[in-house]
């Protein structure tokens, strides 16, 4: 073991690694661009790409004015999703407010609401939605459904059952037969950002590590120093290991910060072991670096390397299932995700943070990342010497 370590860190490798660190040290922008933009992106994507809708302005017509009706209204307005915009005295006024855009949604509680509840009869609450933005409307509807569900569960009696019916604009003035029907959903807002953030993490790791690695490798070639390096007694694997090691450390640091953001800014529960996460992350970084080194051995200049990674990275992320379900992809493309490191990492992160899965459950994904890394690193070592001809 000691011998192996001595071999691994012989004087040449030490000199090579020190040189890489010195180069990184002189290139302040690299460290900066490895830490700041990814964190910003993670935060931004997590919030912006999230389908969560909050603060929907709700107008209320309460014809019942009973404790029960106020309780129902409070259930809505006290949630993050809805905000009370005002009470209206009639459905017509509420309709006007919606069409003027003063409120996004409206709720009408009938005068016999409390009575029906007490009599354990089915009651009907009217819910109006401005569907100009179909997305917001759909989501608001889902929220409303789930809130009624919660409210419903809270009632000892089974009296309330909710159903939502679509109402067209012309029918607005009418007292529609809208029923709320219970739907079995989680709180969509929260789950959404968790899904996005855990996916974006993999994208960022792969994107950054491949870009940084290809830049570091190609720089040597662009400056012409590669010849000098190849002539030195250092072996190709030493050269590549020395290139990878400092970048790996930097990227690992970036990943730790990113995990912090995921936990504290988005509140993703870390159910599983941190070790699983860190191992998965390390492998993900290595596979990203290996993509970069392979790209670099095929590129003559930094520009070329960058263009090549732009060609490779977007499809890699789009087809990974990190941001959208794999099930939504064409059937013939689905098996290809096995080759995609982002997919494996996303599975590991989600499995570990949300479900608390361990190494055993995630073994196929770890194996996938490992094989990917080994194949690509070997490929770049093999290609490295061919660069001169």
């Amino acid at each position, binding site marked *: 073991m000691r011998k192996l370590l001595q071999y691994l860190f012989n004087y040449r490798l030490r000199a090579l690694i020190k040189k890489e660190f010195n180069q990184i040290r002189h290139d302040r922008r690299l460290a900066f661009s490895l830490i700041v933009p990814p964190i910003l992106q993670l935060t931004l994507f997590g919030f912006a790409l999230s389908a969560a809708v909050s603060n929907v302005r709700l107008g209320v017509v309460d014809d019942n004015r009973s404790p029960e009706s106020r309780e129902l209204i409070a259930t809505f307005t006290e949630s993050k999703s809805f905000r009370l915009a005002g009470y209206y005295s009639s459905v017509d006024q509420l309709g006007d407010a919606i069409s003027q855009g003063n409120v996004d949604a409206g709720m009408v509680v009938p005068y016999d609401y409390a009575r029906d509840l007490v009599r354990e009869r089915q009651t009907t609450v009217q819910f109006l939605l401005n569907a100009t933005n179909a997305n917001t409307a759909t989501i608001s509807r889902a929220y409303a459904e789930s809130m009624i569900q919660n409210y419903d569960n809270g009632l000892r009696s089974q009296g309330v059952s909710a159903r939502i019916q679509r109402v067209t604009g012309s029918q607005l003035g009418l007292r529609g037969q809208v029923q709320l029907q219970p739907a079995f959903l989680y709180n969509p807002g929260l789950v959404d950002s968790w899904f996005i953030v855990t996916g974006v993490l993999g994208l960022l790791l792969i994107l950054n590590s491949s870009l940084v690695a290809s830049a570091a490798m190609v720089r040597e070639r662009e*400056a012409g120093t590669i010849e000098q390096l190849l002539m030195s007694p250092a072996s190709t694997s030493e050269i590549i290991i020395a290139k990878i090691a400092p970048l790996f450390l930097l990227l690992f640091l970036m990943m730790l910060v990113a995990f912090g953001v995921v936990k504290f800014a988005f509140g993703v529960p870390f159910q599983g072991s941190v070790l699983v996460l860190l191992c998965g992350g390390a492998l993900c970084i290595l596979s990203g670096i290996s993509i970069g080194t392979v790209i670099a051995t095929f590129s003559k200049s930094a520009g070329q390397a960058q263009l090549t990674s732009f060609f490779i990275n977007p499809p890699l992320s789009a087809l990974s299932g990190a941001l959208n379900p794999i099930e939504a992809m064409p059937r013939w493309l689905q098996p290809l995700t096995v080759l995609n490191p982002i997919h494996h990492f996303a599975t590991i992160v989600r499995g570990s943070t949300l479900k608390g899965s361990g190494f055993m459950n995630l073994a196929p994904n770890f194996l996938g990342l490992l094989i990917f890394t080994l194949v690509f690193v070997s490929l770049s070592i093999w290609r490295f010497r061919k660069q001169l001809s």
Partner: protein
Amino acid sequence: MITTSPARIVEDHHGITEQPAIDVRGLSKRYGKLEAVRGITLEVRRGEIFGLIGPDGAGKTSTFQILAGVMEATSGSANIFGRAAREMRSQTGYLTQTFSLYPDLTVAENIRYSGNLRRIPPHEITERGLQYLQLFDMDRFADRLAGQLSGGMKQKLALVCALVPQPRVLLLDEPTTGVDPVSRREFWDVLAHLTEEGLTILLATPYLDEAERCHRIAFMYQGEILQIGTPTELCTSLGAKRIELRTADLRKAESMLSRETGPDKDIIDVQRFGDRLDLLVRDADKERKWLTEKLKGAGLSVDEMRVDEPTLENTFVARLRALGRKADTIEFPAKKDHSSLRGQVAVGAANLVKEFGTFTAVRNVSLQIRNGEVYGLLGANGAGKTTTIRMLCGLLDPTSGTMELGGTSGNLRSEAVRKRIGYMSQKFSLYDDLTIRENLDFFAGVYGVPEEEREEKIRWVLSFSGLQGKQDQITGSLPGGWKQRVAFGAAIMHEPDILFLDEPTSGVDPLARRAFWTMINRLADGGAAILVTTHYLEEAEQCNRLGMMVAGELVAEGTPSGIKSQQSGHLIEFIVDQPQRAADLLKSDTERWRVSLFGERLHLIAEQDPATAIQQTTKRLEENGLHVISAREGRFSLEDVFIAIVEQTRPQGKPVTQN
């Protein structure tokens, strides 16, 4: 062949050009505390090629920048045709040390762009661009991307771009660094032509064989001009003679004579070449006798002793020495002894061929370099030198042929072999983004220089480069010449017994170059096998053996004197009243390469015996109204021979400058 531009002719007839083209008076430039230029005064006449020579950091580039109007002087005046340089920017062309071309544009587009910048009417740009391209023999490449041109062609293109706006003054700051001898001679032929048309050229160069082609030279040192005169005036002003001494044991003779050498002694300087010593002495006759006795006394034979005028380089080095600038500093801390290897074949190549697709870059090259030998590989840009070196040192696999390196013919890339090799690649052997110290630490580490020796070795490199106390400077901020010194030092820190140096002295000033060669010789004396490439044939004479490559083939090999003596024909030097007209006339009579102009002197390579050639040529010139002032047989320089060899292969259909 040359169409004179109408604008210049008009000027000639009006005779308004009596005033100096460039008039510099008491010019100073200060950067903070540093005084780069200290009150220089010089006048350049119209139609003159005026050379600025001096060591790195003498203030040449600052002078250029002021004259080009891109920088303000601290005090003094710099006038061009009677007006401040700044106002005359439209009339000056300025070529900087680095290429100022757009590599992604074609040759024609580059020309058009630089013309458009100066608002030259499009048809004039096309017309003149073509005219100059033809003059440079480059019109075939009009559609080629500038980035794909060889170094020499790039410089010629940059010159075309500077010429298209028809400047009256051309400022050239080291225009031929990295340009091969053939292109360089063409470049100078063009310059000679342009001055004949009335263009004034101010030029700086670190290569003094090249500076001999200037009409007049100013010798700059530490921001001051020490001397101005024609090359001959400068050489004779030293009041010294040069003795070429050939003896069997150069090393012994050199070390013996060095002890008797100094600025105040009878022998001013000793320089060792591949097969001779050059001595600079005050009194040739006295020294001849003394030398013969001295050498005989030491048991050394005197094979040949010849007295000649000192070269410009001799003069330059002697002057700098007298000024107290020492070429060498602390002794190289040698820890290894390779002398037991002496005489063994260190690099042995047989029938090396390298093909890239359908292009054969190197064909059938066989060569041997033994330990203790300095081998010079010469060739034009694109002749296959770099490819050959890469194969010789095991970086590149030959398509066919066999290689032996350091006694092994198996795995040339093994760690054991590469530890013994020192390699300095063309231009880019250091990391620009690291400090000097970090670079040296890296090379010492990666080559496994023992920890206890490192400090001493690094200290030596810093002193050798003259960079003591500047070790924390970022390498990229160093001027080219200094970077080369550090790179050279870095390449030999681990005391290799096989050393490959690809254009090590490119852009290095003469004094530092002397230090390089002293070191190269010392390493060879210690048993190392050394392969050097250079574009400067004067320094190639310091190699023990030379190989000349043309179009991927090794066409000549031998000692410098051997190669020179193999050259057929005779070199005749004429001094004529109108040198350019005479050169044009003679070029139309014979192959172009046989005629070249060195300032006022005209060189002709004739196949007949010298007397007949002198007689016939004089007659031919006199018939055309040219007056021959003197004519004598000269001796071939290595450059003459090299160009003759390259040009003689041209008719055989071999591409000479190909990328």
